[in-house]
């Protein structure tokens, strides 16, 4: 097949998949009210997506903060502006690093767990069995997981940023000698509430996107062992690309 024909095929496939995912989202949203009637399920999913991701988020947050502190100090020192360490890192974390890194970690940990869990249910006929028992599998299985991810992500983002700033402080103030008062007051002087809300909004949008990709891939996985594996891989790849693309769009919109 000629290159042009292949390109056309691939593009059509991508567009078709986007359409399918949007339709799936519509179906999920349609089931949200019914699924809210079983809050126990949603709580369990917030636990799965959020509480179980805490360890990795907090650890990585600390390291990211510490690295930012080191790099930031080294960079700013060349211009004699070490006092801007707090400001620079807080803004970078809140607006970009926090939401994006959290989303990527989330896709890696919670996204794959979701995709493989639902994919396994597909492969062992559990989803079909539910449909045969006249229970809508989207309402019972997919919607609670979607809501769980959606609620957990912005919270995880905030935790990440907070711990990361603590990490910056650890390196910058404790270790490298930036004045504590300067660090915090400079930060407080430049960071606005709108920056915090920008981080929160990005967290919500990325959460929706990554969770949607994960549940979609799991739900539509081929009902075999390799089907589940492929679904998990695709989840991470598509989540990453989608997060970064949405990041650009959101940044342009919010600035």
């Amino acid at each position, binding site marked *: 097949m000629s290159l042009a024909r292949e390109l056309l095929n691939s593009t059509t496939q991508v567009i078709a998949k986007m359409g399918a995912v949007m339709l799936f989202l519509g179906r999920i949203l349609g089931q949200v009210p019914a699924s809210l009637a079983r809050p126990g399920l949603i709580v369990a999913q917030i636990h799965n997506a959020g509480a179980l991701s805490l360890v990795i988020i907090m650890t990585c947050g600390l390291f990211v903060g510490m690295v930012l502190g080191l790099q930031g100090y080294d960079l700013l020192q060349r211009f004699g502006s070490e006092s801007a360490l707090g400001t620079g890192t807080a803004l970078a974390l809140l607006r970009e690093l926090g939401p994006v890194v959290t989303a990527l970690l989330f896709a890696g940990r919670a996204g794959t767990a979701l995709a493989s869990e639902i994919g*396994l249910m597909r492969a062992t006929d559990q989803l079909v069995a539910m449909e045969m*028992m*006249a229970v809508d599998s989207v309402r019972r299985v997919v919607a609670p997981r979607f809501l769980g991810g959606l609620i957990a992500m912005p919270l995880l983002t905030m935790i990440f940023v907070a711990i990361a700033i603590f990490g910056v402080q650890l390196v910058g103030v404790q270790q490298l000698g930036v004045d504590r008062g300067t660090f915090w007051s400079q930060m407080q002087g430049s960071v606005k509430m709108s920056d915090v809300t920008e981080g929160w909004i990005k967290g919500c949008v990325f959460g929706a996107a990554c969770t949607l990709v994960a549940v979609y891939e799991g739900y539509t996985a081929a009902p075999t062992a390799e089907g589940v594996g492929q679904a998990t891989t695709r989840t991470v790849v598509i989540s990453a690309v989608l997060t970064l693309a949405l990041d650009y769009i959101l940044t342009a919109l919010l600035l």
Partner: protein
Amino acid sequence: MASAPSSTRTETLSQHVVEVRDVAYSIGGRTIFSGLTLNIERGRVTAIMGPSGTGKTTLLKLITGQIRPDRGQVLVEGRDVARLSRRELYALRQRMGMLFQNGALLTDLDVFENVAFPLREHTKLPEPLISHIVLTKLQSVGLRGAWALMPAELSGGMARRVALARAMAMDPDMLIYDEPFAGLDPISMGVILRLLRQMNDALGITSILVSHDVEEITTVADTSYILADGKVVAHGNPQDLKKSDSELVRQFMNGIADGPVAFHYPAPDLREQLLADVD
């Protein structure tokens, strides 16, 4: 509990619970059915048999409304399944119980919760009553003592029995078994056979059985359909089918290695292929 479509209560119940009329279905370029017609009688155990790949599971999907035929009709209790709305389809499915090949128990729930699942989703019964129903169903399949186990802790045979208890939880009119004997040891197989027959007779329900275990079917089925090439090729009592005039049917029922269904996959001439390298 949910009630069946009201039309069947006001008329006399027809003899055929399921009618498949001249159904054609193909997928991915492959024709699976090209004119399939069969009827499932009320209150009987009907077996659907045939060589691998003839679409037995596809037939089940058509009956339960998971897929729609390209042509023809599938009627359940007199209603065309393909035309039902989602809500009506769900109402219909509440009157059916389905047993999957590997049990398909929900892995994050224990045995008790698995059997209770349909009750919790569709009814608002109080907890003591649910418990009563679940334990009774488990008792009838001999697994009341296993109520606290997780599906991962069950053997294949036990998992299937729990799945049977779950399929019965809502007291359906019809039970569908998809390859219930596949991969079971002889004892478990005997257990399932006994349960199958007992359930059908004790509760007056209709059972549809998809399998290709000829011996088991012969012991338990009242009537049987053999599918091949997208159509029904034989129909009747399993004992009679063994002595059928058709060579295909006899080959299948008696397990003969070579016959109308060839032993050899189509290949070029043996001599040509082997000796071609020698030259």
